[in-house]
């Protein structure tokens, strides 16, 4: 289980209706269905992954997220989940608002471009960063809208989106509230101090302000 999956799951209510954007092979959706009894759909574009997910008995609909969520009615889900796909869509701002139209809450994870390793990579080498969270070359990356935690939080503020929770985690999977060993607790403390610098993946739970 990927760490952002594990964390996203903490914010999904049992038996709720979930839409999983860019669901891949459906591992998160399957996990949520089995452990939380949620119902819902996964949207995915990669047909091999769609086939894998269908073979698990999941409900998967082929769709390009760039086409938006117009096919879904307002408030037709409890939560929209999007793991590591926001940075790959053409209009992340529009999609984000669309997500909060079809559901009350959204859980979003994305790689943090301001992670210290990326800063070092670009600052010292003068080359676009390649890391575990961003494993592509600049010319073949699907990630066309990379951002930092600060950028994302500014986008939310500008669009009346309220951040309910945030977890910042590192490559190794240790982050605030995760793991119980002394070492992981120490790392948690440090990461918490400067997440934009130290964490490479963020998990946000957001809702419409005043909603």
């Amino acid at each position, binding site marked *: 289980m990927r760490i952002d999956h594990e964390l996203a799951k903490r914010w999904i209510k049992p038996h709720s209706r979930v839409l999983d954007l860019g669901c891949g092979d459906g591992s998160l959706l399957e996990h949520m269905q089995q452990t939380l009894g949620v119902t819902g759909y996964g949207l995915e574009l990669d047909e091999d992954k769609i086939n894998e997910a269908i073979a698990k*008995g999941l409900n998967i609909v082929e769709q390009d997220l760039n086409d938006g969520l117009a096919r879904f009615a307002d408030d037709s889900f409890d939560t929209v989940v999007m793991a590591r796909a926001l940075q790959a869509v053409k209009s992340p701002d529009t999609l984000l608002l669309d997500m909060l139209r079809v559901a009350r809450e959204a859980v979003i994870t994305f790689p943090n471009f301001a992670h210290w390793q990326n800063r070092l990579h670009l600052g010292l080498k003068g080359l676009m960063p390649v890391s575990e969270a961003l494993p592509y070359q600049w010319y073949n990356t699907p990630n066309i809208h990379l951002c930092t935690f600060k950028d994302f939080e500014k986008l939310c503020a500008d669009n009346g989106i309220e951040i309910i929770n945030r977890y910042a985690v590192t490559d190794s999977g240790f982050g605030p509230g995760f793991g119980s060993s002394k070492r992981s607790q120490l790392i948690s403390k440090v990461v918490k101090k400067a997440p934009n610098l130290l964490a490479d993946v963020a998990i946000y739970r957001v809702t419409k302000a005043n909603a």
Partner: protein
Amino acid sequence: MQATTTDPKFANSVGIVTPQTMHFDTPLTLECNRVLPEFDLVYETYGTLNADKSNAVLICHALSGSHHAAGWHSEDDKKPGWWDNMIGPNKAIDTNRYFVVCLNNIGSCHGSTGPTTPIPDSSSEGEPGKPYGPDFPLITIKDWVKTQAMLSDRLGIDVWHAIVGGSMGGMQALQWSVDYPDRLKRCVIIASTPKLSAQNIAFNEVARQSILSDPDFNKGRYLEAGTYPRRGLILARMVGHITYLTEEAMKSKFGRDLKSGRFMYGYDVEFQVESYLRYQGERFSKNFDANTYLLMTKALDYFDPTRGYVDDDSLSDLDALKQTLKHTQCQYLIVSFTTDWRFAPARSEEIVDALMANDKPVSYVNVDAPHGHDSFLFDIPRYMGAVKGFLNAPFLDNKQQLKANNTKERLA
């Protein structure tokens, strides 16, 4: 009904199959309010029905299809059944796991009761012994589904593991899920539509007019007159065939290639594509009955699963479909093909959207394939993979799932 044989062409196939006939002598009232006093259904089966009869898969055929979906009729048969790349051992519809049934719809010319069948003595209409011809009643998709349910009863199959169909077959599968929601667990609708568009109906009308205006049609009594509307049927098939392909597929197959390499300045066949269309039309006209073609295209035009389920005319098409699909109970797989312009992906998505609006279990794949509408007959790995995975997947009954989870919670 399956035989093993040593010929390598049977190696990856259900082998030699023999059609069977089921006779029904109870009168069947059709949607058009006319009655067939008795009728036959011809069908084939592949694989073995398990003890609790839970592994049966029904195949619904398309416009020019028949009961012969897979395998070969004899050792020297030239071609296997029309969906042989889909149905067989280890194939998408795996006959090692499933008991597959494919039947010929009534109104057809491939053995089931249709326009070429003699009118039975028990009929109050027409002259017994003479072929029905143009007097065969117009059939709807709903009528077909009703007769298929009757066959299911006779075979002792209460609930189908899945009902699968492409094009017109997909419409039957959809209608099944609406009319008999508790008799199927899975529904696979391929390259289909919730109802025909005006353009679809227009193409069908051109096809019908070409048959109806052929002087040899003799008002549909060609069998008795000893004639046959060959030219009309060829033309009808040519029009249809063009709509099943794509410009790109025709271009790569024929381009503007000339048969003799130069212009002949006449109306004989000059371009390869003309030759191909004429050949296809000719072949079709030899194997298909003109009255059957007429009534089947009408069945397509009439298709509208919302009839009888929605009485509010002011509803949009999507809302009417939503209301109709509200009480369905099966899990759906909808498949479309990117280059299909006869029943474009957007038509499949209408079904998907109506199902999702009802919280119904549905998966949808839009398969990238160059062959247009005909793609559903091709062996395209991602398409076959989706169907196979869907049929073999655990069936998620959300209500049961929730109940199980609730019990767990209470216990904890």
